[in-house]
């Protein structure tokens, strides 16, 4: 069996499962946020009763992150709905925007706060819940109705996905990031190339990647339609998890003879810095080919591209240089924001590097303009701005305005492009 099949079999109390089997799994963690939480709570209370209790208060994690720094009244009401529920249910894991417990973007906060453990089953009311496969968990996005069902029962009926195996061989050049790897793969297999499947990533180049870069890769598995993305938890992953939680867990690993529906092999040394052109993440193009695309705005942020490693990469390019277009920086979480002040490159903090480069003031952590959001959202497009962004989606209108085209790229490529004002291969500045 594959790692995905093994995790699901154990969660279903079975000795074996095969792709296509419909099985009931016990859920280890249910994640929700301010956009889908109130609707999930609505479903839960309607179906199980106003006084019903969640199946296990230790396993429900609520991380508001989407519409936080806005004057939108309904957005505030929705966070209040979460607060009331947390109080009524006495839930221990709620990260309230009104106090010090606030963290920021759920998919970066969830592992940082120790809620992601190898071998476990995680469902979240957000499609990028697939991020957590980076630590060897089965993790997938669901809607409010399924989440309401889990809240009441702790279980979900799911189909075991087939596995697509991606082996990345070779040594990763320093100009290639997790983002370049996943955009290349999505470009090859297409926007729906992994629909219903599990994308399993392995090989020497994956094992050499830091956790945050693995997260970037698994985060975008859903951009190829996958149910989950997953990487076997090696020592790097186990160390990351043990630093953040004392809870016991049991990792799973693919059998050497595990069957995959398709197997792909790549040499990462042959990869080039790339972008996804508007309006889909599978519109792959080498950055070097798009030098005539003039930009108005650069954006570094989100669960895909707003981690500390992303800002460090951007800072290596921006140190001692000036951006020539509006450059928006949104750390994913408070931990990342703190890192911007403490992390240094040749004696200079990232914060100082970005300031001297002429970037806009760093925003507080949240999803911000990654999904457009309310009119007053930081970085939201309102006109025909041409944007290059470290986020994960470039659909029409994704960052606010339907007329603003979005190019997705790694933080290195975004930073280089911010300097040049045109799409630029970062090797030019390395």
């Amino acid at each position, binding site marked *: 069996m594959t790692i995905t099949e093994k995790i699901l079999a154990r969660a279903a109390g079975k000795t074996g499962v095969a792709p296509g089997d419909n099985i009931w799994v016990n859920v280890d963690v249910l994640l929700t946020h301010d*956009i*889908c939480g*109130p*609707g999930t709570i*609505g*479903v839960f209370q*309607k*179906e199980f009763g106003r006084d019903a209790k969640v199946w296990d208060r230790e396993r429900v994690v609520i991380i508001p992150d*989407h*519409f936080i720094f806005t004057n*939108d009244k*309904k*957005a505030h009401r*929705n966070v209040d*709905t979460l607060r009331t529920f947390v109080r009524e249910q006495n839930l221990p894991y709620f990260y309230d925007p009104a106090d010090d417990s606030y963290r920021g973007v759920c998919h970066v906060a969830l592992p940082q706060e120790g809620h992601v453990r190898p071998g476990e089953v995680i469902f*979240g*009311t*957000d*499609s990028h*819940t697939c991020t957590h496969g980076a630590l060897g968990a089965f993790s997938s*996005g*669901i*809607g*409010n*109705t*399924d989440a309401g*069902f889990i809240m009441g029962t702790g279980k979900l009926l799911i189909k075991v996905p087939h596995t697509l195996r991606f082996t990345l061989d070779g040594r990763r050049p320093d100009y290639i990031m997790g983002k370049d790897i996943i955009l290349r793969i999505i470009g090859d297999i297409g*926007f*729906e190339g992994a*629909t*219903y499947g599990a994308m399993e990533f392995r090989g020497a180049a994956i094992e050499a990647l830091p956790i945050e870069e693995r997260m970037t890769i698994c985060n975008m598995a*859903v951009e190829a*339609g996958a*149910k989950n993305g997953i990487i076997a938890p090696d020592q790097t992953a186990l160390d990351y998890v043990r630093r953040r939680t004392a809870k016991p867990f049991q990792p799973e690993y693919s059998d050497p003879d595990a069957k995959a529906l398709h197997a792909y092999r790549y040499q990462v040394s042959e990869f080039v810095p790339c972008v996804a052109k508007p309006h*889909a993440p599978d519109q792959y193009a080498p950055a070097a080919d798009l030098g005539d695309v003039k930009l108005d705005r650069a954006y570094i942020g989100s669960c895909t591209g707003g981690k500390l490693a992303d800002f460090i990469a951007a800072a290596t390019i921006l140190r001692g240089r000036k951006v020539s277009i509006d450059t928006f920086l949104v750390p994913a979480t408070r931990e990342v924001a703190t890192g911007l002040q403490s992390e240094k490159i040749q004696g200079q903090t990232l914060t100082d590097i970005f300031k001297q480069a002429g970037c806009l003031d760093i925003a507080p952590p949240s999803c911000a303009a990654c*999904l*457009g*959001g*309310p*009119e007053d959202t930081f970085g939201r497009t309102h006109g025909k701005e041409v944007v290059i962004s470290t986020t994960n*989606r470039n*659909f*029409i*209108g*994704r960052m*606010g305005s*339907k007329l603003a085209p979005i190019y997705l790229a790694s933080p290195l490529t975004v930073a280089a492009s911010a300097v040049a004002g045109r799409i630029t291969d970062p090797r030019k500045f390395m």
Partner: protein
Amino acid sequence: MTSPILRGKVYVVGDNIDTDQIIPAQHLNLVPTIPAEYKKLGTLALSGLPAEYPPLVKKGAGISEYVIIIGGRNFGCGSSREHAPIALGAAGIRAVVAESYARIFFRNAIATGEFYPWETETSLRQVFNTGDMAEIQFDRETITHSDSRKEFPLKPLGDAKAVVEAGGLFAHARKMGMM
């Protein structure tokens, strides 16, 4: 029991209609389980489509004049927001007939029971124009272009059909004595 035939106007869209086009993110402050906000979501369904599309729901109208959406490949790709299938259902859409769906959207459509997410082997986008009349025969699982009487098979919905018919996951589970 649902009426064995669904008859109505179709609204035709392209490939990769993502959830941001179905319901743009700025409207995700609406909570689908609040009845007034459910209705409001319906009036905003497909408002993220490019400007060349006619509105699905006319300004001022509570619901859509269309009842069936004809889509292409990968319909509903993107986010897990259940607001998307709910907005279509609240707009009065009773069936979507597409070549393929994104996984989470398909599952949400069935779990909410808002509409039947049917698939077809071949593209029907060359056959139907927005505003044409169509008939879906539930027992035979076919869709007919009313004017030309051309008939096309729908891929069987299997177990999912009963869930939508019951009105969603919970209603189905109760009906089956599962809860």
